[in-house]
C-alpha cells in the first residue's frame, strides 16, 4: 500500500475502500476523501514510533504484570435469558435470529 521508508504516509482512495471493506463499513463517496486525508495523517503521526529503540524489548499487551487468565469449572452457572436478550434483536422468529438468506 505504501512504503515505510519515508515519513510521508499517503493512503489512496483504493486503500481506504479496502480497509473499509475489511472493517465491513460502508463509506459514502462524500466521506471517502475525508478518510483518505485523516487516516493518512494519523498513520504519519504514529510513524514517529518507528524511531524508538525497541531491540530486545518485550511487547506489552496488558498493563498488569503476572496476571493470568482465570479458569473456571466447566459448569452451567447461567439460567436461560433467551427471550429477554432477543427483545433487543432487530428480527427473530421462534427463538432464532433472522438474517438475509446466505445459501440460495
Amino acid at each position, binding site marked *: 500500500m505504501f512504503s*515505510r521508508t519515508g515519513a510521508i504516509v499517503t493512503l489512496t482512495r483504493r486503500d*481506504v475502500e479496502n*480497509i*473499509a*471493506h*475489511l*472493517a*465491513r*463499513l*460502508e*463509506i*459514502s463517496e462524500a*466521506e471517502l476523501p*475525508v*478518510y483518505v486525508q*485523516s*487516516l493518512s*495523517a*494519523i*498513520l504519519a*503521526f*504514529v*510513524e*514517529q*514510533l*518507528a524511531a*524508538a529503540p*525497541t531491540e530486545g*524489548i*518485550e*511487547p*506489552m*499487551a*496488558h*498493563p*498488569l504484570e503476572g*496476571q493470568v*487468565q*482465570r479458569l*473456571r469449572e466447566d459448569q452451567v452457572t447461567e439460567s436461560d*435469558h433467551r427471550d*429477554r*436478550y432477543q*427483545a*433487543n*434483536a*432487530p*428480527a427473530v422468529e421462534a427463538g432464532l*435470529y433472522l*438474517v*438475509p*438468506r*446466505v445459501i440460495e
Partner: protein
Amino acid sequence: MNPHHATAAELGRGLKSRQYSSVEVARWFLDRIHETHGALNAFVTVTAERALADARRADAMIARGEGGPLTGVPVAHKDIFCTDGILTSCGSRMLANFIAPYDATVVERLTAAGMVLLGKTNMDEFAMGSSNETSHYGPVRNPWDGSKVPGGSSGGSAAAVAARLAPVATGTDTGGSIRQPAALTGLTGLKPTYGRVSRYGMVAFASSLDQAGVLAQSAEDAALVLGAMAGFDPRDSTSVDAPVPDYAAALGRPVKGLRIGIIREFFGEGLDAGTGAAVHAALDGFRAMGAELVDVSLPNLPLSVPTYYVVAPAECSSNLSRYDGVRFGHRCRDPRDLMDLYRRTRGEGFGAEVKRRIMTGTYVLSAGYYDAYYLKAQKVRSLINDDFRRAFSQVDVLMGPTTPTPAFDLGAKTGDPITMYLNDIYTIGANLAGLPAISAPCGLVDGLPVGLQIIGPHFSEERLLGAAHAWQRDTDWHRRLPPLYA
C-alpha cells in the same frame, strides 16, 4: 440549605441525620435537571420514576437505621454502563434502541449501596473523543462557559456534576476520559488502577486500557464512591482479586514527607502559561505542606499519544466487530444480503470518529502491517511502562497538569483529529501503564478551571486520594461553582 451546595458525603450525613429525606433530595436534583437540561445537554436519559423509587427505598433503609454513607445520595451513570431496563446508548446511533437486559457491576454495587439513579449521561460515541462532540445526541456544553467543551469522553457526567445537576457521577477512562473532563469542569476525577473496578456491563472500547471511575466534587466523595464500586468480580476476567481498602479512612494521611516527582516532559512546549502557573502554585502548596519535590524525567512519555493511537484503535476495531445488526442494536433497512447488512448497518450506526478509529485499527492489525504498527506500539508501551517503574523507585507519586490548556471552544478541534488527540497528551501514559491517577482542581484561568494530575503506582489509590484531600483541606478550588449554576 440547598442540596446542590452539598457534596455527596455531606448529603449522606444530612440524610442520616434526617435533615432531609432522599425523596426530597431526588426531587431537588430532578427539578434542577429539568430546568437546565436544554442548556447543557448533559443527560441522554433522565430516570425520574426510578430515582423516586430508589429514594423511597433509601428512606426506608435509613428509617430502619440501615445503609451506609452513600445511602439515599443521587448519582448519574455515564451511558456506557448497562442499566437493566433502561436505554444504554453509549452515545451512539448503533445503540440508540438498546435497552440493557442487565446491570453493570458498577451500577449493581452503587445501587446496593443505596444510591439513587437520576439518569444516564451524554458522552462521546463509544467513549471515543475528548470534547463530547462525537455523541449521537449532540455536544455537551461546559457549565463554566457554554461556548466551551466540557471535555470528553465523560463530558455529560462532568457537566452534570459541575453544574450540580447530580452530586456525583460515574465515568470511564481509556486515555483520560475521566481526568480530562474533570479538569476542564473543576471536578475531582479518579481513574483507578486497571482491574480495580469491574468492567462487566461496561461497553468495551479498548479492553487493555478501559477502567471505570468517578467524577466528584471532592477527594472525599471520590473515596466513598470508589470504595462502593471497587472489588473483585468473577464476571470480568481482568478484575483483580485484591481486598478493597477503606479509602475514606485513608484521607487523613499526612502529606509531610511525601516524595513528589515533577514530570519534566509535562512542562514543555504546548503547555498553556496560565495552566502551568496554576499547577506550579499547587506544587508550591504541597511543598509548604512538607512534601519533597523531585525533578523526574520519563523520556518515552512523549510517545504515549502515538502508541495509544495504534493500541486503542486496534482493540476498538476488534471490540466493535460485535455490532453486526443481527442480535441487538441498529440494523439497516432491507438488506440485500449478509454483506450488505453488515456494511450498511455499521456505516449508518457508527459516527465519523468511531469509523475512523475502526479503520485505523483494522489497518494496523492487517496482514503485513501488524509488526510495523501494532507490535511496535506494544514494545513502546513497554518502554513507557518502564519509565514509570523507574520513576516510582524514586518517588511516591508523580504530579503535573492534567491537560495542556483549559476548556477550548466547541468546534475548535473537530476538523483535525490529531489536534484533538493531543489534548490527552498528559493523561494517556497512566492508561498505557494501568496506573491510578486523579485530577483535582487547582485554579481558574480566565474563569475556566485547571486540573492538577497526581499519578501513583498500581493500587496506590489511598495515597492519591490522601494527597488530593490534603490539598482540598487547604484550598477551596473544588468548592467553586460555575457562576450560572451557583
